[in-house]
């Protein structure tokens, strides 16, 4: 046994609540309040994972979010979550943890042999070696050997992650001494305040470092401050990581709950941000500095004080700075045999009790296989040790400051980058700002709170930490393998290789060696890597600079970002008011342009059902739910001038009670939408646009209204969702409606084709428009959406006498294609101009302004060889053409496209296939044959007029 749980102590654990969980199949015991890492240490588990590339055994390094080694996949009662940091994840009864990149387990990994070949696989080895014939041939097997945790492909959330929006005056990130003091001062100054901290309990360094505040214990200060904040109504969130600062001070928080609940995402919009994010301890460079049992000195102290875990019996504490003295003293007091190796010879603190101090020496190498067994100093002295606690100095946690575009300033005395020029709305306090003693920490906290100070600044009344440090960076040509980035297996030699191959820019260094690119984003390693690069290239550390800091600070589960926005909540469909009625008729629903609509009815075989619907619609009468059609009202004194400007066709000449078909163009002349315009009276129109274009047309109308006509002249109201539109179409449409009674004359003299009448049904006003998208006599009846059901039922009832058929959208598509009626975006593309569709009149004749006008007179618009809208006929007995197939032109040995098929169906009324297309010069080529190629097969079609059924239009009036 090396590490053990002490009989007493441990501020974080509750010994009355024991628990057990499994790690790599072994049972691990602990207490409530343990992290997975503290429980593993208490059970003397040294090897907790295998490294990314070389499968080196790795142990626990830290006690917080910076942990590079101790990643575990967590499962058990919940779906597996990969790459969880054992140092932040709460130990829970029944939890199942597995080490990452280890088969079958971290202790006995069958890929461990890779480490013996490590000298042959330096940085970029894989890319250089496996270039021929193709990296992708080798990639799957290499990826299987390298990597970290395993994604559970069957993962589904038990419940969606909650997402919370929050606003406050001051957000304080970090509940260490600086954050607690700042939050208390902000609260006392009257600011609404929020305090968040990524540890399970508040306190930060106060939870394990010495300190006395206002004459009382640090623990009392922590407890009272948190209680005061909560009492004043300020949220205090533990186990919550502020992972990013985004534009305009949006701060993202991810809150872990320590139980089965998914994490909660917070979007906080504070007026002011105080970053009291502390500092992260760095490793020391020596050969084999990655052996299990070698850990951060501060983490060793944290495990001792918080979890009553003594990490070893014979411990070497190695340091280049003052902060490790307190660690050595505490470990010795807890019963370990401690040797303190300080690389500095002078100006060092006095030796702590029971600690042997070796000064002016540093560790040259560590030895051991599955855990550290001892170290050799640079003078050859060998020390036995079952644990090595190292401190290479402190890196202020400036990630969030830099994400907010803060610039760093190198501080030689601290051997660290500190926040430079202040960023508006953000202040940095405590260790993150370079403060070391509690007095300094509180002074920076007082300055960090905006406005005049109102409360009482806490006072440090105990012993004070000192900041002495002499930098100890990795050096060139060191013997053995000195690890810099534990998580991505980057050594000092890899950095030297990068420099030799001229990847000397810090951004190139990162990408070439993968330094700092792992899930820990180099929190413990980046500075050592760039300091070594500075040394090799004869530059200073600030000359090398840092890479760009980007969110997230720690990995955030995608489920947090997703929240409830999955499936239909991510992309909601629009639904018909009569959806349930159609479902009662076995309507088969599909999404069309954002609307969920019946494709066909009856639940039979699709093709046969659709053909049957289309045929019967021509024979007697069809009922169709057209409620998705746009119904945008244009009202006001300038309404007529407005629709003239909006439409390609002149609309102001339309008489009240009449309808006209027209195009809307974009300013580049391209046909943007088509549809019917209804004039209700002098100053009131209804724009009936395509179902899927309602939002876009509405936005366009608003834009022109506000930009050109003014708010007082025109008013626009989108009534699409307010009204249902039920369509009755076919030779017997009028007869059917006459039996229903709509309170208006259906006589053709009173309601001719392209007229609109106002009626009443069951006390409810209805609009009856005689317009047709089928080519048959049709009536579109619009009624309040919530009153549509009785009318539909009445139409169904009346339809029985006429063998009326319900038709879905698929049959309607056949009916309109038989007539050569276009669907914008299907039969047209982003280059189709109105005259390409055979509508030349307005272009030739209109004298007043309209959207897209000038674009119809460009060189391009006037070309003679434009793609023009045509019908395409194939010989009887053949199958329909393939939609999207190209008409080809043989040009020597080359094939060139001369257009393509846009719509193609089997026409049950004609008993042959029909098709529509855009063909070069097509309008003048009716009767010509063209070759149509699809997937290598060539067929012949004859160019025809678009309208294949009833070209004279008699059926509209039949």
């Amino acid at each position, binding site marked *: 046994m090396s590490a053990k749980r002490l009989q007493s102590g441990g501020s974080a654990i509750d010994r009355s609540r024991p628990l057990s969980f499994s790690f790599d199949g072994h049972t691990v015991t602990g207490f409530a309040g343990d992290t997975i890492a503290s429980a593993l240490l208490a059970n003397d588990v040294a090897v907790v994972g295998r490294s990314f590339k070389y499968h080196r055994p790795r142990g626990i390094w830290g006690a917080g979010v910076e942990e590079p080694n101790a990643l575990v996949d967590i499962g058990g009662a919940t779906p597996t979550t990969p790459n969880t940091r054992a140092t932040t994840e709460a130990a829970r009864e029944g939890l199942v943890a597995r080490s990452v990149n280890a088969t079958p387990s971290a202790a006995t990994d069958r890929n461990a042999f890779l480490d013996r070949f490590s000298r042959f696989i330096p940085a970029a080895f894989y890319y250089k070696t496996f270039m021929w014939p193709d990296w992708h041939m080798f990639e799957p097997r290499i990826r299987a050997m390298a990597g970290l945790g395993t994604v559970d492909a069957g993962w589904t959330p038990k419940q969606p992650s909650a997402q919370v929006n929050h606003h406050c005056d001051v957000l304080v990130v970090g509940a260490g001494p600086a954050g607690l003091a700042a939050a208390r001062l902000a609260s006392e100054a009257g600011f609404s305040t929020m305090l968040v901290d990524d540890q399970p309990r508040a306190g930060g360094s106060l939870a394990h470092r010495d300190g006395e505040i206002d004459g009382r214990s640090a623990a009392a200060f922590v407890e009272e401050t948190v209680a005061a904040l909560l009492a004043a109504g300020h949220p205090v969130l533990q186990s919550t990581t502020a992972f990013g600062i*985004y*534009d*305009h001070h*949006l701060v993202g928080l991810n809150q872990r709950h320590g139980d089965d609940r998914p994490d909660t995402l917070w*979007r906080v*919009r504070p007026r002011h941000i105080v970053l009291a994010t502390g500092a992260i301890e760095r490793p020391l460079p020596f050969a084999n500095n990655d052996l299990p049992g070698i850990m951060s000195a501060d983490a060793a102290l944290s495990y001792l004080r918080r979890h009553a875990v003594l990490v070893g019996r014979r411990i070497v504490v190695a340091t280049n700075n003052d902060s490790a003295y307190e660690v050595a003293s505490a470990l010795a007091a807890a019963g370990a045999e401690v040797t303190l190796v300080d690389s500095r010879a002078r100006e060092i603190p006095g030796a702590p009790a029971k600690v042997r101090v070796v000064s002016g020496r540093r560790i040259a190498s560590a030895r051991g296989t599955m855990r550290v067994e001892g170290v050799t100093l640079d003078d050859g002295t060998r020390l036995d040790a079952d644990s090595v606690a190292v401190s290479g100095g402190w890196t202020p946690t400036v990630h969030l400051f830099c994400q907010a*575009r803060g610039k760093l300033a190198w501080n030689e005395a601290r051997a660290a980058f500190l926040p430079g020029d202040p960023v508006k709305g953000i202040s940095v306090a405590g260790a993150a700002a370079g403060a070391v003693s509690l007095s300094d920490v509180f002074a920076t906290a007082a300055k960090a709170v905006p406005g005049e100070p109102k409360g009482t600044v806490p006072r440090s009344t105990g012993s004070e930490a000192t900041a002495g440090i002499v930098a100890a960076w990795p050096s060139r040509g060191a013997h053995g393998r000195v690890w810099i980035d534990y998580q991505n297996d980057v050594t000092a030699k890899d950095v030297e290789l990068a420099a030799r191959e001229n990847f000397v820019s810090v951004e190139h260094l990162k990408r070439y060696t993968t330094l700092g690119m792992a899930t820990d984003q180099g929190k413990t390693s980046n500075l050592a890597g760039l300091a070594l690069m500075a040394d090799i290239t004869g530059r200073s550390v600030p000359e090398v600079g840092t890479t760009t800091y980007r969110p997230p600070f720690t990995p955030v589960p995608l489920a947090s970002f997703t929240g409830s926005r999955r499936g239909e909540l991510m992309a909601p469909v629009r639904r018909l008011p009569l959806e349930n009625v159609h479902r009662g008729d076995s309507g088969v629903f599909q999404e069309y342009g954002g609307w969920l609509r019946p494709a066909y009815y009856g639940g039979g075989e699709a093709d046969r059902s659709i053909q049957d619907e289309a045929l019967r619609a021509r024979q007697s009468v069809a009922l169709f739910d057209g409620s998705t059609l746009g119904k945008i009202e244009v009202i006001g004194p300038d309404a007529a001038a407005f629709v003239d400007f909006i439409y390609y066709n002149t609309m102001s000449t339309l008489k009240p009670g009449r309808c006209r078909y027209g195009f809307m163009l974009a*300013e*580049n002349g391209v046909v943007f939408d088509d549809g019917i315009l209804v004039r209700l009276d002098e100053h009131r129109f209804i724009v009936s646009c395509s179902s899927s274009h309602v939002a876009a047309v509405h*936005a366009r109308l*608003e*834009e022109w209204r*506000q*930009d*050109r006509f*003014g*708010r*007082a002249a025109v008013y626009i109201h989108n009534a699409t969702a307010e009204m249902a539109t039920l369509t009755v179409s076919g030779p017997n449409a009028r007869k059917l409606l006459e039996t229903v009674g709509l309170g208006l004359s259906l006589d053709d003299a009173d309601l001719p084709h392209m007229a609109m009448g106002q009626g009443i049904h069951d006390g409810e006003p209805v609009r009856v428009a005689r317009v047709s998208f089928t080519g048959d006599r049709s009536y579109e009846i619009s009624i309040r959406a919530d009153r549509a059901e009785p009318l539909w039922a009445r139409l169904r009832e009346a339809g029985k006498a006429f063998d009326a058929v319900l038709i879905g959208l698929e049959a309607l598509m056949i009916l309109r294609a038989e007539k050569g009626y276009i669907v914008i975006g299907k039969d047209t593309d982003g280059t189709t101009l109105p005259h390409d569709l055979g509508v030349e009149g307005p272009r030739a004749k209109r004298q007043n*302004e309209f959207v897209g*006008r*000038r*674009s*119809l*007179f*460009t060189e391009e618009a006037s070309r003679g060889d434009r793609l023009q809208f045509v019908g395409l006929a194939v010989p009887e007995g053949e199958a329909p053409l393939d939609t999207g197939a190209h008409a080809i032109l043989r040009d020597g040995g080359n094939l060139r496209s001369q257009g393509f098929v846009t719509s193609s169906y089997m026409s049950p009324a004609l008993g042959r296939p029909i098709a529509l297309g855009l063909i070069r010069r097509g309008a003048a080529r009716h009767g010509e044959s063209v070759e149509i190629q699809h997937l290598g097969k060539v067929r012949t079609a004859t160019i025809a007029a678009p309208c294949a059924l009833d070209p004279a239009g008699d059926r509209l009036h039949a």
Partner: protein
Amino acid sequence: MQLFPCPFCGPRDETEFHYGGDAGNARPDGADVPIERWANYLHMRGNPKGVAREVWVHMNCSEFFVMERDTVTHEVLSSTALDGGHAQ
């Protein structure tokens, strides 16, 4: 996530807004507008580095307005209702 001030609704998330083009890109009318002028109106954008005057629309209230903002720092400098708007 930026916050844009709608002159009518106040500060709202940027996802509620659509970009409407450069402010002051006046539409030339007529079938005989010189083609270069029309092409400028239709296609050419300032895309300035720094202060930009742009038209935006707040999708929730449908109102168009002019916003001045810095394309480098993302600082919003002003937002103004169009003529006839009823900003409060």
